[in-house]
């Protein structure tokens, strides 16, 4: 019970001015994202923020699986990578004349013509569709196999992590098709535009922003629907949901597949932004770091993971530009502090702050009907339910 109240839409409770504050914050967020490139100014920074927006897409999707569905997916890097490679293959082919081989293929392989796997990726539409559909279908297939057999909790987490390792090994090992550790790079022409033109960065930024908005809209619709309630119910008591006649495996598979699709879209949009698609971006460590984005922002909320991804990525750039070694400690500390001490993340802190404020002002909701999860004492059982 606690968990449902803790993670239910906060608009249900709180002082009377809350809905307005929420709307104002949302409007401010949209304005900030839209005005982003003008506020940032510097084209390189704009490009970096476009990258962060892609990460936010992954976080929004991952939150559906982990925050709402209780599936600790440590393998989002696989889906992110599949999307990125799909687009990377298109971009690689965009650089060469039709009928010619990409440069790395003439170096590493003895192909005389384009291998079968690569051929359809000459089309942008095919590449984009594949970037979203391949991760979605793969996640659906794997998810169905795993959830049907009621493999869950830590087992699911460890299997997804092993999948990430296998994916990385395949990318590195299949040198002829993937260019190995070097990855796909040198995208000088991006969707017909020159990479060095300053407004190309702006264009990519808005593309990423549009993708993020789409992901948020889909996530909101899902969470507020009957499906969303069912998903939270599965997280908090899978067996009870089964007794009620639903199939939890189906619900979990759907959420996992949507999360994978969002990661794939993020990958496709990030490939031109980052300018390189290489195995190390999709290895075990980056995949588990995606969990931190969600945890920092606040699992089980729509906007928390988005903010978390942007904040952590920004911080990462800042810290590793000046002191790269310290980032490793910082990253580790972030895991320990956020997960162990602040399981609600930034969103949880905000809610508890609001409650205190509300209690002091005496307006609207009292402490009794405010979200219970906000107080530290109640957060622990809430996350325990998540962890099941």
């Amino acid at each position: 019970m606690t968990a449902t109240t803790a993670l239910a839409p906060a608009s249900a409770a709180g002082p009377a001015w809350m809905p307005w504050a929420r709307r104002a914050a949302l409007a401010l967020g949209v304005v900030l994202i839209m005005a982003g490139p003008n506020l940032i100014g510097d084209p390189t920074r704009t490009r970096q923020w476009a990258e962060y927006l892609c990460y936010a897409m992954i976080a929004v999707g991952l939150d559906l699986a982990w925050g709402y569905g209780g599936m600790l997916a440590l393998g989002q890097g696989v889906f992110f990578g599949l999307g990125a490679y799909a687009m990377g293959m298109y971009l690689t082919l965009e650089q060469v004349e039709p009928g010619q081989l990409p440069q790395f293929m003439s170096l590493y392989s003895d192909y005389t013509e384009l291998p079968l796997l690569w051929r359809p990726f000459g089309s942008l539409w095919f590449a984009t569709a594949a970037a979203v559909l391949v991760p979605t279908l793969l996640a659906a297939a794997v998810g169905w196999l795993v959830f049907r057999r009621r493999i869950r909790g830590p087992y699911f987490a460890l299997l997804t992590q092993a999948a990430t390792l296998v994916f990385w090994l395949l990318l590195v090992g299949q040198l002829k098709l993937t260019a190995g550790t070097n990855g796909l790079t040198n995208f000088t022409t991006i969707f017909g535009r020159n990479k060095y033109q300053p407004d190309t960065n702006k264009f990519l930024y808005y593309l990423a922003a549009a993708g993020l908005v789409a992901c948020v809209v889909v996530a909101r619709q899902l969470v507020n629907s009957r499906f969303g309630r069912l998903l939270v119910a599965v997280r908090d008591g899978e067996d009870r949901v089964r007794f009620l006649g639903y199939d939890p495996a189906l619900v979990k598979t759907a959420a996992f597949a949507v999360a994978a699709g969002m990661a794939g879209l993020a990958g496709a949009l990030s490939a031109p932004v980052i300018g390189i698609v290489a195995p190390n971006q999709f290895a075990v460590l980056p995949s588990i770091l995606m969990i931190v984005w969600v945890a920092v922002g606040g699992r089980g909320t729509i906007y928390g993971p988005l903010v978390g991804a942007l904040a952590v990525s920004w911080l990462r750039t800042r810290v590793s530009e000046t002191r790269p070694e310290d980032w490793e400690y910082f990253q580790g500390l972030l895991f320990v502090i956020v997960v162990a001490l602040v399981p609600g993340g930034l969103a949880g802190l905000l809610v508890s702050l609001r409650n205190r404020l509300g209690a002091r002002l005496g307006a609207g909701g009292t402490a009794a009907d405010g979200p219970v999860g906000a107080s530290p004492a109640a957060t622990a059982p809430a996350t325990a339910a998540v962890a099941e």
Partner: protein
Amino acid sequence: MQTFLEQLFIGLSLGSILLIVALGLTFTFGQMGVINMAHGELIMAGAYVPYVLQTKVGGALGGRAGLAFLAALPIGFAVAGALGLVMERTVLARMVDRPLDTLLVTFGISLMLQQAARDLFGASNVEVVAPSWLSGRWELLGVVMPHSRLFIIALVAVLVGLVSAFLSTRPEGRRMRAVMQNRDLAAISGLSTRRVDATTFFLGSGLAGVAGVAVTLIGSIGSQVGAGYIIDAFLVVIVGGLGKMRGTIIAAFGLGMLNAFSEYWTSASLGKAILFIAVIAFLQFRPNGLVSFQTRGLTG
């Protein structure tokens, strides 16, 4: 036939390495249900012990690499065990009912330990000098068997023997089994489950340290040495099933063999993929692993 025997030995050797790195996990993960992602870094800590003994305190041992290596086995056990004990007391004991969060927190700890190792011992990998009596090789039916590999197989056999003896004869071992099989009942019977947890975690972590000392025989060591083994080790425990060492032993050698043969038939990367698909397929038939406790509870 010749290649078959060779692959058989490689599989046996891989299996013994998998078993030695997974043995500690059968305690911390299998018995306590703690997913300790920093287990790999406990292996790393154990691996640096012979290095430190050989380079820093080499003079006291008369520069004898072999003696330092043998001394490293118990010292590695103590160092990794102590490290694990500190982790258990300070962090994990507070998060008993949040297994997934434990996974993330210990992962954070593992990142910090890796960076600490880079700061202490440098970013590049270092070599541990193998004892001279382990540098030779035997040939049997045309199969070349390096002594170092045989030593690991023997070591893991001894460890398994010691651990089973400990669990079945020592009172501490029996208490550990009692807590594992029914925590509430053990607590009601007057056992301090907290103390038993600490013992279990110390033992599991210590075994990781011994594994660390053993893997220095296979290659150079660095901050990533444990991370390279950890995923395989967890796969072994998942396939083996929680709670019983028998399952882990069968799973380790089974996966070792499968790995050896699939890599031989395909390539290193494809072999790993085949292994993973095999694990998923296996879990379709036995979701709880090879050997598991029979329970009437719903959430097994």
